[in-house]
């Protein structure tokens, strides 16, 4: 086996040092009653055969052009981003517990925290969460820790999967959610926020693509003594839109995989979690801080470990330890590459492409579900017979939007997405097929 290097001579010498004659003796502490009675029935494969098999599985997925976002928007990955991230010193290292030989990871995460803070307009960002959904669930628990009221008001227009994960996390607790419905313009109705909620949780742009008025939501939340938890599934939007922090958000959570991370069938992504600095001791997950070493050199370490599970055990603010460090690195490389101006321009192009697609679909008989501002996703009501057409479009290589099954109140409604990856040629070819 090519990953194991002991020769028969090595084995003999090692067993002699240990004082055994057969390797099996080392397992004498495992009682007969709990031993398996057969060998592992998986046939080992050569690299050649393995590659063929995996290529066949990969080929069994349709190679189509998607016009679906829904928490995983298609974005271009610049060549140097995965190239740098896959350097083995980053990829094959562990959590940076030994700062002297982990300054690469530590500085990269410090820079990720800094750029994420800038992106979201927040004072503190952590080293990442698993994904957008778990970031949202942890943000809700964090808000409850801060405000100590047992309920969270949650916009119905948040990503349905994220709300499902939130209810999984809340299931064993006494905490509850209160749903905030939609206004006719596709924004969240914050007119009836109850008084016993720790936070109002609103996604922007929301699941139906509408840019929420976070400033007004913040006012409604704060008037009730609640925090505004702003969530997002499309980090690219903050290249163009006013960031949540500047509109009064207290905690911001979301998915950052638009920055250099491919779809990967939905994972792994990278959860982003940020807050105002007053709440830093309540934030879950790892934090990297700047300090000096004993020679006065600037250096970076994991800090505020007193919040974390390996020190606090059952009193920790969360159980998270491994997070999405390598994808945080990837997202950081992307943000550094784009920079202030680049991110603004690529975000503007996203909006341009989406507006072009929307106008084209409207010409083909679709009607906008809302008269509301959008970024790169929008919901439309389809003309009669579109559901049958959609199957045909798939055969022609187009995934024509997402049917909004999770929102039965919007009949025949579909969610579309266009980004910088969709050239005008592709958009026109698609529109021609739809028309």
């Amino acid at each position, binding site marked *: 086996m090519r990953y194991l290097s*002991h020769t028969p001579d090595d084995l003999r010498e090692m067993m002699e040092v240990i004082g055994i004659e057969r390797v099996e003796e080392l397992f004498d502490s495992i009682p007969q009653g709990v031993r398996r009675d057969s060998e592992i029935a998986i046939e080992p494969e050569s690299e050649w055969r393995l590659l063929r098999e995996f290529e066949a599985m990969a080929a069994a997925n349709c190679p189509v052009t998607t016009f679906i976002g829904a928490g995983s928007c298609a974005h271009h990955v610049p060549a140097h981003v995965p190239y740098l991230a896959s350097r083995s010193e980053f990829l094959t290292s562990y959590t940076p517990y030994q*700062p*002297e030989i982990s300054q690469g*990871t530590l500085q990269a995460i410090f820079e990720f925290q*800094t750029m994420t803070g800038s992106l979201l307009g927040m004072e503190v960002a952590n080293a990442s969460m698993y994904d957008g959904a778990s970031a949202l669930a942890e943000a809700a628990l964090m808000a409850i820790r801060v405000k100590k009221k047992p309920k969270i008001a949650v916009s119905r227009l948040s990503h349905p999967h994220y709300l499902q994960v939130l209810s999984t996390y809340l299931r064993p607790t006494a905490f509850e959610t209160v749903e905030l419905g939609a206004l006719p313009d596709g924004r969240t109705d914050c007119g009836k926020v109850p008084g016993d909620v720790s936070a109002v949780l609103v996604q922007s742009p929301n699941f139906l693509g509408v840019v929420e008025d976070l400033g007004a939501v913040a006012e409604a939340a704060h008037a009730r003594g609640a925090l505004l938890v702003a969530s997002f599934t499309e980090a690219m939007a903050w290249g*163009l839109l006013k960031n949540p922090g500047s509109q009064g958000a207290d905690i911001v959570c979301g998915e950052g995989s638009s920055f250099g991370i491919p779809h990967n069938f939905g994972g792994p992504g990278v959860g982003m979690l940020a807050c105002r600095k007053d709440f830093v001791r309540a934030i879950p997950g790892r934090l990297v801080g700047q300090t000096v070493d004993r020679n006065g050199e600037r250096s970076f370490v994991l800090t505020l470990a007193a919040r974390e599970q390996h020190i606090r055990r059952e009193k920790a603010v969360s159980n998270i330890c*491994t997070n999405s460090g*390598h994808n945080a690195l990837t997202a950081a490389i992307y943000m550094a590459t784009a*920079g202030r101006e680049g991110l603004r321009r690529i975000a503007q192009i996203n909006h341009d492409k989406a507006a072009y697609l929307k106008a084209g679909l409207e010409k083909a008989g679709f009607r906008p579900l809302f008269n509301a501002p959008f970024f790169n996703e929008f919901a439309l009501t389809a003309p009669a017979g579109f559901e049958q057409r959609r199957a045909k479009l798939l055969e022609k290589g187009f995934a024509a939007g997402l049917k909004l099954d999770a929102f039965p109140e919007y009949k025949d409604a579909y969610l579309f997405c266009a980004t910088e990856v969709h050239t005008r040629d592709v958009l026109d070819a698609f529109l021609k097929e739809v028309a």
Partner: protein
Amino acid sequence: MDRYPGTRGLAFREALLWERSRKGRIGLSLPEQDVPRSELDAGLVGDGPDLPELSEVDVVRHYTRLSTWNCGVDTGTYPLGSCTMKYNPKINDRVAGLPGFANLHPMMPVECIQGALSLMYALERDLLEITGMHAASLQPSAGAQGELAGMLMIHAYHAHRGRQRRKIIMPATAHGTNPASAALCGYSPVPVQLSQDGIMTPEAIREVMDEDTAGIMITNPNTLGIFESHIAEIAKIIHEKGGLVYGDGANLNALMGYADVEKMGIDVLHVNVHKTLSTPHGGGGPGAGPVVVRDVLEPFLPVPRVVKDGDRYTLSSDAPLSIGRLHSFFGNFAVLVRALAYTRTLGKHLKDVTEMAVLNANYVKAGLKGVYNLPFPQPSLHECIFNDAIQRKQGVTTLDVAKRLIDFGYHPPTVYFPLVVDGALMIEPTETESKADLDGFVEALRAIAGEAAANPAMVTDTPKNTAVARPDEVLAARHLILRGETPQ
């Protein structure tokens, strides 16, 4: 010193990103503006994030230099106890990057994702074959989320049976995440006395198990590397009182081909694929923490589940007792692809993996016995735990030994964990270290013990060859600087 890898040569300083920034630079290639510009309402548009402005070359230099300040498994021996830092095969990365996987959108019609679902189904089958369990879910994103999934299932099980319980048995040899995961389900941990051999006894369990206790969280082999040989009887006691057994699979690398998890009486176990199944740790994730369960817990598994129907695969959420969804989509798929590449490459030779991992740990243990104190001399499996009881008398601590080891060119072992050992040095070499690497590592630790006896300052005044030395962690926590300034 010549025989140790050590460090020599150029080490570049590297500024923070924004210290390299020059106004007007963009490192991103922007696509042609082939559609008309569409203006958003000016009231919605912000000033743009305050990000550094760099060329592509700046970015490449920056991260390349940062990488040289890191140390990975590809760089050298990385014997972190409890972390299973084995070699990460490169073919795994290659297949995970196949465009048919990497570019697959998660919300596609089921006809379009047959390859992905077949892969997930195959990995579930392999995990069940390796562990002997009944059903699986690949959704959890990490070991700790797998633990949470397991505890949520145990909580849902008790709720379904009509009476919730309030406590959970938690040995001191449990991972730190275990009590935190249990706390998320509202269970308070109940400690249990360990025997002199460092394991739990049926008598001790009988004393604490009652009908208000939801079950037990067991790591086997435990964090001392010792097999809990009474596990089947312990599980029986738990089950008789209506409780369930949670197994922390962090140490599965010690058991493949030998132990049957179901026969141990475990009801739910999480598998750290970034440990046992060789997926890269990535400097702190992403990993994956699938759970495998006995039949009694299958109805509670997260949804959606992958279902095979003839030659066709579907996703099903039709499970009224399920704990619900745990992931934005279906789990860390790209990590799971790597895990399947590993189980398929090794197959039945996973048993050899376990044997060589245990052999290597015992070889290191034999080489260091007498030189460092071994608080639990009992037979151990894939890791061995020493401490600084001898060196402390010479004015040298575990931390000093760890830092000195860096100068010899080795990543230190896990230190000060598990908590049941004072000043622990927890060594897990894994199966992929060669005899020569292990010999070098053992000799380095022996040399350090010699230095500690002869001239402690040689050990305490370290590390010498690194970019930074002993950063002030107290200062970092007291004067929090969690983000940099971004002057433009």
